[in-house]
């Protein structure tokens, strides 16, 4: 039976992890490769690295990072953050990335999804979507959530699928950071309206939140950052709990 996936997310700036990380047994908590390897040891099913660097050197840093991760980790990883073009992606693929996540660039030019899927295969293309609920409906936001659009979430994920996306990474801006649970209702709507896997993100605070996003939210995978970084929920404990609750996950 296909297992539900647990995915820690690491924010990267200039090749280093930025969010405070509360691990005692790391030589260098800022080293994304070392942190990624630790998560992998603990049973993470995949990793997502999001680069928030805003410099022109970005492409080089990102490629070097992808290469270092690919050399050291034996689980799949996605890399994203400010990817604009086919050239950006080609470098990452060549460096050993398993998947890339595109966000604002895909909304601004949806043909990019098609071009990437055609050239590199759908399995390589994760479309990340940040959305906020406003007067009842969910709308896609750009640039890390700073710019609202009038594009409806369900319309956009359908379009992304039709254009060749292999997976959707959906973040609810209403829930992100609140630790009060994932956006289960809308996640379930996203998951059932398309036939590609959906990674739910935003709102994880307790182990039960993960149970809920997999059962009520019908997510294929759940992504979280701070609760893993600050060891509020160790991955092995989370996985045993999910198994006890009848959610099929890969054992550690």
């Amino acid at each position, binding site marked *: *039976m*296909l*297992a*539900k*996936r647990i995915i820690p997310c690491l924010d990267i700036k200039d090749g280093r992890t930025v969010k405070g990380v509360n691990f005692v047994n790391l030589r260098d908590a800022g080293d994304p490769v070392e942190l990624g390897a630790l998560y*992998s040891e603990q049973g993470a*099913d995949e990793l997502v690295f999001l680069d928030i660097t805003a410099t022109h050197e970005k492409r080089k840093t990102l490629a070097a990072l992808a290469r270092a991760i*690919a*050399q*050291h980790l*034996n*689980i*799949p990883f996605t890399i994203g953050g400010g990817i604009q073009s086919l050239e950006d992606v080609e470098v990452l*693929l*060549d*460096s*050993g990335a*398993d998947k890339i996540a595109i966000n604002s660039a895909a909304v601004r030019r949806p043909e990019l999804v098609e071009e990437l899927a055609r050239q*590199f*295969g*759908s*399995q*390589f293309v994760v479309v990340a979507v940040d959305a906020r609920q406003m007067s009842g409906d969910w709308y896609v936001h750009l640039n890390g959530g700073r710019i609202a659009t009038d594009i409806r979430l369900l319309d956009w994920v359908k379009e992304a699928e039709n254009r060749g996306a*292999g*997976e959707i990474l959906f973040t609810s801006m209403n829930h992100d950071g609140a630790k009060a649970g994932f956006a289960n209702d809308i996640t379930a709507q996203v998951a*059932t309206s398309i*036939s*590609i*896997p959906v990674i739910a993100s935003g709102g994880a605070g307790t182990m039960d939140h993960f149970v809920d996003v997999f059962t009520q939210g019908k997510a*294929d*995978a759940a992504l979280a950052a701070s609760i893993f970084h600050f060891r509020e929920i160790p991955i092995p404990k989370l996985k045993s709990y999910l198994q006890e609750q009848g959610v099929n996950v*890969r*054992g550690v």
Partner: protein
Amino acid sequence: MITIIDYNAGNIRSVLFALERLGIQARLSADPDEIVKADKVIFPGVGEANTTMQYLRERQLDEVIKGLKQPVLGICLGMQLLCTHSEENDTECLGIIPQHVLRFRPRQGEKVPHMGWNSIYNLRSPLFDATLEKEYVYFVHSYGVEPGSYTIATCNYVQPFSAALQKDNFFATQFHPEKSGKVGAAILENFLKL
């Protein structure tokens, strides 16, 4: 020398890195001579069947692969291309393992691609040892091969399908051992010991 067939496939570097982590120096090559002379050959692949077959034919790599006598490991698309035919854009494949590659036909809203960790069972091959029964490995694919006489590992998604195949010196996994954690590393080591 272990040689990884170098063509326009996505996961070639990942396979090279996986071998490096096992302390094995492998070589990427598209040179028929180097491939034929290798001790073992790995034929990875992520991508679309038709384009890839065309690419192999243009470089006469199809005939090279068919003629290999040493242990060969096909991975993912590499496994599918070792078969006779793929439903993906109606592609005639290498025909080494007489099997057809079919698209997943979801019955209860299952997602396609089959993406993530799934368990493998009914293992029967030196590629696997008994401890690996029911272990999880990483899959990403929309097409697969039904269980048959060449099946050496089975997995269940929508219905049972071949997680791995073997015919003579040709071994093949539908999953990605290079991305399957310790289990995948054990499988790669078993292949290297053949």
